[in-house]
């Protein structure tokens, strides 16, 4: 297992390296460079005539005249060594400041959504497979299609309406007014959790619908395996049998797609965030693209891709634990 872990870890670091290069290339794609845009923004409307020499001066000052490889190492080195993502151009401050708390809020939403998705879909999917063909099963199938068909923003609106109706609270945003700008404290975390469930439920909705079908399908296959019949024939009690044999393998496809789920949830986040009045990274990413603020965009992209690669690493380890054949096959 140690060797397997090590192998996958090395693979993960290598992938992250490649990904960071690609992100850097994406940052370089928009026409003009940081110096151009900096100069334009600084002097536009001031009546100062900007010459090519001025821009070149800025370029030298910011180190943008260096070859691409050097700039890449500057950029990634700053991130890895100092946690410095460079200057956010549009906000005239460091990227770190711009992103700030949003990282943790976004991570919180992502994480809560993932947990919620798996906690609901795995047991229900297993249950549906065991009761295949029953009314419960058909009911869940209908729910699944509803979940898949319903747009997120619509669900968000509907849920916000009812949450407001039943709980009365201002349910939009991630914090109540009094905690909006308060420093981090236990109370503030609690307040966040109280607000977190709504976006998590909205985002988990379609994921649950989808994953129930996945678990149900693999569980149905596993239930028909001879090894399950054999276990039943040696008298293993039904509940223990279900968990020990088919269920452990039935979660396999879910575990192997944790990385995809992260990506999917992040993509769906902005529109839900707009409806629910959240400030998070997805929205910021969009804004950064529109402003051609590539340092901010790059930082967010990098964090997202790193998160996905890391989740994939975790899912590899989890899979190897769930199904020892994977580990043994690799060595």
């Amino acid at each position, binding site marked *: 297992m140690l060797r397997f872990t090590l192998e996958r870890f090395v693979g993960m670091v290598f992938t992250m390296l490649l990904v960071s290069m690609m992100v850097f290339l994406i940052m370089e794609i928009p026409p003009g460079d940081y110096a151009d845009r900096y100069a334009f923004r600084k002097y536009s409307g001031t009546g100062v005539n900007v010459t090519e020499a001025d821009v070149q001066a800025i370029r030298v000052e910011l180190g943008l005249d260096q070859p691409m490889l050097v700039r890449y190492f500057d950029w990634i080195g700053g991130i890895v060594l100092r946690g410095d993502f460079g200057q956010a151009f549009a906000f005239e401050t460091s990227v770190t400041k711009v992103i700030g708390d949003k990282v943790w809020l976004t991570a919180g939403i992502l994480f809560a959504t993932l947990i919620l998705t798996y906690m609901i879909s795995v047991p229900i999917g297993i249950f549906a497979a065991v009761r295949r063909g029953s009314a419960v099963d058909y009911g869940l199938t209908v729910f699944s299609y509803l979940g898949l068909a319903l747009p997120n923003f619509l669900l968000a609106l509907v849920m916000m309406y009812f949450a407001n109706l039943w709980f009365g609270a201002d349910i939009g945003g991630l914090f109540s007014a009094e905690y909006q700008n308060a420093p981090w404290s236990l109370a503030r975390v609690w307040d966040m959790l109280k607000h977190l469930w709504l976006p998590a439920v909205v985002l988990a909705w379609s994921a649950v619908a989808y994953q129930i079908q996945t678990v149900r399908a693999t569980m149905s296959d596993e239930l028909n395996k*001879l090894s399950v019949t054999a276990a039943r024939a040696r*008298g293993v009690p039904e509940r223990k049998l279900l968990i020990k044999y088919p269920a452990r393998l039935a979660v396999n496809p879910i575990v192997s797609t944790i990385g995809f789920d992260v990506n999917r949830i992040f993509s769906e986040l902005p529109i839900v965030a707009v409806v629910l009045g959240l400030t998070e990274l997805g929205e910021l990413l969009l804004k950064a693209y529109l402003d051609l603020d590539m340092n901010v965009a790059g930082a967010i992209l990098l964090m997202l891709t790193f998160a996905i690669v890391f989740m994939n690493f975790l899912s590899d380890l989890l899979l190897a634990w769930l199904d020892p054949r994977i580990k043994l096959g690799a060595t």
Partner: protein
Amino acid sequence: MSTILDVKNLTLSFRTDEGLVKPVRDVSFSLERGKTLGIVGESGSGKSVSTKAVMQLLPGIASVDPASQINYTAKNGETFDIAKIRPGDPRMGKIRGGEIAMIFQEPMASFSPIYTIGNQIMEAIQLHRGLNKRQARELAIEMLDKVGITNPVARVDQFPHEMSGGMRQRAMIALALSSGPQLLIADEPTTALDVTIQAQVLRLMRDLQAELGMSMIFITHDLGVVAQVADDIAVMYKGEIVERGTVRDVINTPQEAYTKRLLNAVPRLDRVVPPKPLNNNRRLIDVRNMSVDFEVRKKKLFRTEVEKVRAVNNVTFDILKGETVGLVGESGSGKTTVGRAMLRAIDPSEGEVVFHRKKKGDIDLAHATEAELQEVRSKLNMAFPEGPVQLHSLGSDLLRRFRPEMSLVFQDPYSSLNPRMTVRDIIAEPLVASGLMNSREKIDERVREIAARCKIDLEHLRRFPHAFSGGQRQRICIARALVSKPKFVVCDECVSALDVSIQAEIVTLLKEIQAEMGVSFLFIAHDLAVVAQISHRVAVMYHGQFVEYGPTEKIFFNPQHPYTKALLSAVPHPDPDAQFNPIRFDGEMVYPIATRTPQGMSLRIPERGQAATDRPIELIEIDDGHFVACRLQDGPVSSESRVLEPA
């Protein structure tokens, strides 16, 4: 003597899309304590499903008819009707495993791949024996040892996929017996195993049954197996028991028509009359010193190591025109690889495969128009100038054009037919793919001709394969293989998946076709009796090499190589009075030493531990056309060695 299980009027109903189906009707049988009941029947006869009812392991769509009784006498003497016990009753949990244990056909699939063998055996022990984990582990190791698994202390922590099929089935028996059942239900436990392994497992089960005083229900389609293990026998046909009685009575003097038919269809090695060797020497294919290597990739940390495994090692033989050469051997011996390499489906690594042809462009398309014929001829002539075709060195383009001359019939008629093509299109495919025929009418005509010959209803040509039974599908496969009028067909286990009665029909069909078309077959099979029925000559393979090769009669009735002898002795005959004493073959290969004598050749087996000669192992002709793998030694027979006596 007391009855342990008494099944009365068992009727099962399955709710299916086609309505209510009754796969088991009015089945009654009983089992005495310590005895073995064999249930025989062909696939779909309901033999397996009726025993599943005893364990309440029926699928969800099944229901037991209220009139059915499954009276079971538990260890504590209490008798109750399992058919009346509701699911979830604690008594059932005790019966399953604790009182009645079950082993299944597929040793691959009956263990869960994600837990070790030990984990699953210990689970059964802890459920029924009330032992703690450490004791359970000790007992598991003891049981593994008892079923003949070497090094059980290490094996107990292995995963199922780290074991061979035979070993897994032993482990399954260990599991079943470890919880101390008084009745063992074995559902085709040896069907998936090689014949030598089957013999070992049968013997093991017989010994353990005697030792533990267990009762046993043995479900099988193999009358040879049932004759060796069972006391009583019940013959099932289409969901009903047609005949019941002692093994001796039923097999020696069957009363019912179905039983008689079944017994007639079984190929019997002890009574077979093999075809006489052909009396010509018109060679069709020459295989000379052919070897096939496979590359096995082993993933190491950060790199991949490529290892070569020799699947076929230096094989030399020939096939005559219109001849069937049988190829037998256990799984993994390289039979299939020989067949595929001869067709160039895989490339031989060394050696030659030469395809002889009478005259150039020797192609016989009876119904082609003159223009078509011209076209085909010119294609073939350009591709293949006069003389034999060196198949082993043919480039891919030429090989494709040569394809219609050879073809292949696979083992599994279910997966070898494309479900999205009609039967007509399936059969026509070789003609279309090779460009041999272009006109639709001609193709149709040829397809109808060969389909009729293979006894396929012409009405069926428009249907899709899913509508057909295994036997019908195999006919389609054969028609497809023969549609291009090939000279050579490899039949790779082509009757293994079929019931005996269907098997007999297919074998007859192949013989008839051979007599008419003069086609040559390489008949690969693990069932020695079928091979004996159809083959003019037979080759026995072991670990990629031929160990014995010659006329069928000589191989089966006068085997010389110890491996051939072991293989033949492992076949159980459907004769309750026959002695079943398989020679135990433990994998250590002893090659005989051949010496030239004035009379010809004499063979002797070197004593154990005796230094083997440094001579290479080679196929030596010890008799007319009878080759044995041995080491050739000059000089007289030494006194301390024993001379092989003819069997």
